[in-house]
């Protein structure tokens, strides 16, 4: 059987896919940034002296790690109007779901990283008269970022791919546009191949950048 690849269709639909690509970016980068920042706070809560903070953050982390992301996204969309009477837009619900999910995983990365730093680093800094918060900011976290860079990259890649789940909430991101176009034209092969290539082009620079950073940092100290 011979199949002729319809290149003209790819060219024709590409602008629409690009619009989806932009929305994917708008989901990906903010949810990653918010998720990692919140993850750091959660990790500090996990490691704090307060039992309440430790327990609360643990419950939060487990809740988000032990349920499917797909359910989390849909849940935010449908449950928020019922619980707090606010109807979130599909985009906001998806962004929130992705960010909170990322924060749970980010918290575990930060926690592992902070705990892997030798106790002597804390002591060396405290012996100079540094406050706990300064030790964290100046001494511990810079080492954690370096150490955990591969894990953070992993998470970034994971979030980029997870963002395709927002299509079930009709967020007009890349995957949504791809599915819509392929059912409109009955040409899933051309359209979905293009979608996969666009995802690859989006994600590969991130992994490449992190490999470069890792190599450059390895040269130091």
């Amino acid at each position, binding site marked *: 059987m011979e199949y002729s690849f319809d290149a003209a269709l790819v060219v024709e639909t590409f602008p629409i896919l690009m619009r989806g690509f932009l929305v994917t970016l708008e989901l990906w980068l903010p949810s990653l940034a918010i998720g990692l920042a919140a993850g750091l706070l959660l990790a500090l809560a996990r490691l704090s002296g307060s039992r309440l903070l430790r327990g609360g953050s643990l419950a939060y982390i487990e809740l988000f790690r032990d349920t499917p992301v797909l359910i989390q996204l849909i849940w935010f969309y449908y449950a928020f109007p019922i619980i707090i009477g606010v109807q979130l837009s599909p985009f906001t619900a998806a962004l929130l779901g992705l960010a909170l999910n990322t924060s749970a995983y980010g918290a575990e990365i930060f926690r592992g990283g902070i705990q892997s730093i030798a106790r*002597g680093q804390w002591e060396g*800094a405290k012996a*100079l008269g540094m406050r706990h918060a300064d030790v964290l900011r100046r001494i511990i976290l810079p080492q954690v970022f370096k150490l955990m860079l591969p894990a953070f990259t992993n998470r970034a890649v994971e979030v980029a791919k997870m963002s395709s789940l927002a299509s079930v909430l009709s967020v007009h991101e890349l995957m949504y546009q791809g599915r819509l176009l392929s059912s409109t034209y009955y040409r899933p092969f051309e359209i979905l191949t293009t979608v996969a290539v666009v995802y690859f082009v989006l994600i590969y620079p991130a992994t490449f950048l992190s490999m470069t950073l890792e190599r450059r940092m390895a040269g130091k100290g």
Partner: protein
Amino acid sequence: MQAETLSMPEPTRPAPILQVSGLHKWFGALHVLRGIDFSVEAGERIAIIGGSGSGKSTFLRCLNFMETPSSGRIALDGTPLGRTTAGKPDEVRYPESELCRVRERVGMVFQQFNLFPHMTVLENAMEGLVTVKRMKKGQARERALRELHKVGLGEKTDVYPGRLSGGQQQRVAIARALAMEPEILLFDEPTSSLDPELVGEVLRVIRQLAEEGRTMLLVTHELGFAYHFATKVIFLADGVFHEVGTPDEVLKHPGQERTRAFLDRFTEFSF
């Protein structure tokens, strides 16, 4: 919270910088320090010796609150550190600000150096000045360079600690502590993790500091160095001061059987 003063055994002259009374430390069920009374006066150089597990490192680490005393009080310039609640004199809380103030004045050099691996030698020596003393970068740099030159590492300022030998790393750690201009310097077995041929370069730096008249406490197994370095030697055993005296008294003519037995182990294989 109430202000209080320690009952001093006798008014000593010059007034002690640091004063310890009734110090106990437990690690769980393990009673490591069992009631220590002690003071440091300006210009004193005190060597602390004893077997492993005798509590000598724990004692030193209590002085800058790397370990929190289980009971007893430590006073700086006659003012007891920590806060108590009325009616509960044994429950002492130590606010972070107070601990930071003590540590600024009582510096420490560790067995494992504890340099910051993500910072250059110069940045290591500047860190306390910039972050704790809030000094301007240029001024901090100048002072850090001065101390690095003093320990003989003026040429290695832009190198990361991982590229240095153990002896060089320990000298950076000493410069980092010196930069803060502490009134007392604590050395916790500063040469114990060094290859034998690197011990000398670190001891020479410490001797140089002794010649400057700095106030120092040194936990060490280098008895020969302790003999020449110290104005006072303390033999710690089972968490108490077993014998205290001049280097001659404690190291050459120990009065206690326990001290003699400890010293004999060091000379057993000498030639």
